[in-house]
């Protein structure tokens, strides 16, 4: 690759990054180092290689980012090909992440996309910690909440203040038909997914008695088969898999019978697929616009050349083009991001659980009444003691007499404590004051 070509290839970025301008952030320093950082060091994770993911990978790679990882558990399907343009007919059945990475690497010289064909939940903290920015093109709220929780769990607090170097910004795109949104989340600093969970409308559900007795819509018939007939007849001895054509077919046939019985029109195979998988038709142009906005935000975060989106952008293409931006507010009582883990000092590792509970009730800044305690030990949730629920109390009572060490409670373990005195479960981090001494 000739230097002239290289120069021309990135000249537009150099104009932005090597000169100052009226829209630059005050702390922005024009320098050729920034482009170098962007190309050589800045490590991105793209979550999802579907409609948004294909756009994101293309946008980011052409923007100069080279250290890109992509993670997706799905395989290519025929119905993806109209908009997920990194895939071809021959790719059907292959991993989306792998095919997308291969395509970008072949098409954009110098770019190094690394693929991960798995669930996001299969990766651990060390994996996520390596990235500077995480970009999401997801269609699932569960997955969004999970990665949100993961990035928050990577935050390091010092004296109650967040260590900025532990913040991994999350740029999140979402689309539904002609509507979409892009947002920038600075975990621990600005509104997170959990703070704004109300924004996600709950799935449309129909009263069970309606779908059972007085169906009026084709959707009622499909829901009936899904909720009542499937568990009853269990045709394939497993839960419904929306990607299995046999399953969809079975539901389609049964729902058609039911629709005929009640004289309901409009039941189609596609509708069955849509209702079972909660699909809203994807629109390529919405994906393109939202991905472009997300990629721009990644660029701004990576280079500091311009202030970030603050912090939620809505796009509506249903009638004309409508967009506005507002600041989603961080919730003071957010279950995910307001939890500055408080430390609780354990003076003696031979303390019993009952001593710890006594401390929670006595400490002037806590003054709890009947705390219920759980902890995550070696990745497994453990209920240590819960006084208020009889059946749990009986099974956990013996823990009271055990020492913290015997219960697996070590230095740094986080306790989740629920009590009537606090609106939410609070997190307390155990600090054993003698650990250092013992180690010596």
């Amino acid at each position: 690759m000739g230097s002239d070509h290289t120069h021309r290839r990135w000249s537009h970025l150099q104009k932005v990054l090597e000169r100052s301008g009226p829209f630059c952030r005050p702390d922005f320093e024009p320098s050729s180092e920034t482009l170098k950082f962007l190309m050589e060091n800045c490590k991105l994770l793209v979550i999802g290689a579907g409609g948004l993911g294909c756009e994101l990978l293309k946008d980011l790679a052409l923007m100069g980012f080279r250290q890109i990882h992509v993670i997706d558990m799905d395989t290519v399907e025929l119905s993806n090909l109209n908009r997920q343009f990194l895939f071809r007919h021959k790719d059907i059945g292959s991993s989306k992440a792998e095919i997308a990475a291969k395509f970008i690497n072949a098409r954009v010289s110098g770019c190094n996309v690394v693929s991960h064909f798995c669930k996001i939940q299969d990766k651990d903290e060390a994996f996520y910690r390596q990235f500077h920015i995480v970009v999401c093109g997801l269609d699932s709220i569960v997955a969004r909440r999970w990665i949100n929780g993961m990035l928050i769990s990577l935050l390091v607090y010092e004296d109650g203040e967040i260590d900025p170097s532990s913040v991994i910004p999350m740029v999140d795109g979402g689309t539904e038909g002609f509507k979409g949104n892009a947002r920038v989340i600075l975990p621990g600093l600005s509104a997170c997914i959990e703070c704004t969970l109300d924004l996600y409308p709950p799935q449309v559900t129909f009263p069970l008695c309606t779908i059972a007795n007085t169906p009026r819509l084709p959707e009622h018939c499909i829901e009936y088969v899904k909720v009542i007939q499937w568990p009853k007849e269990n045709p394939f001895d497993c839960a419904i898999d929306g990607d299995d054509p046999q399953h969809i077919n079975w539901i389609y046939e049964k729902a058609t019978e039911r629709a005929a019985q009640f004289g309901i029109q409009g039941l189609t195979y596609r509708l069955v697929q849509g209702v079972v998988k909660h699909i809203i038709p994807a629109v390529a142009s919405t994906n393109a616009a939202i991905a472009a906005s997300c990629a721009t935000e990644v660029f701004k975060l990576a280079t500091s050349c311009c202030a970030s989106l603050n912090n939620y952008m809505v796009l509506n293409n249903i009638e004309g083009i409508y967009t506005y931006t507002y600041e989603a507010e961080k919730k003071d009582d957010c279950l995910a991001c307001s939890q500055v883990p408080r430390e609780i000092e354990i003076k003696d590792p031979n303390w019993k659980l009952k001593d710890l509970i006594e401390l929670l009730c006595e400490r002037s800044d806590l003054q709890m009444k009947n705390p219920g305690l759980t902890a995550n030990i070696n990745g497994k949730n453990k209920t240590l003691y819960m006084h208020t629920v009889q059946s749990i109390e009986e099974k956990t009572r013996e823990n009271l007499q055990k020492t913290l060490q015997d219960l697996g409670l070590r230095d740094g373990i986080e306790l989740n404590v629920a009590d009537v005195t606090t609106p939410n479960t609070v997190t307390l981090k155990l600090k054993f004051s003698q650990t250092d001494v013992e180690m010596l």
Partner: protein
Amino acid sequence: MIKLFSLKQAKKDGESPKAGTQKKASAAQLRITKDINELNLPKTCGTEFPDPDDLLSFKLIICPDEGFYRGGRFVFSFKVGPNYPHEPPKVKCETQVYHPNIDLEGNVCLNILREDWKPVLTINSIVYGLQYLFLEPNPEDPLNKDAAEVLQNNRRVFEQNVSKAMRGGYVGSFFFERCLK
């Protein structure tokens, strides 16, 4: 506004082979811990946690002390998913019951379990909703249509059918297992 890349540091490749674990409890987990710790059960209800470490799946036992179902013992299974409280828990009745709002497969027609669920509701709200179903079975929203019709047309016959079912026996062509306390 913090400048995230003032250090412009290269991040280390930290991927380790062990499976992913979040050291922090998930928001759903934190929320259910709170819900369970603050369960305020009516005296007719009790819970059973087969595995106390798993607060996401448990059973609720209702033993009504008044109304049609007095003397019965009804077990409900609760399954709380990772999207709680955005989505309601899945609740099934494990005891066969002759009831207009509960079908013979254990599906329960209770508005807050489906269309009227809101994240501010808690496990406690559901417990009270279920308890209410036994005090005031509602023939307007039937899931077991036969039972609803009988309740609407002849409360005495309904009452007899309920006791027949709870003692263990046939109502119509369906055999109910005994569920008296």
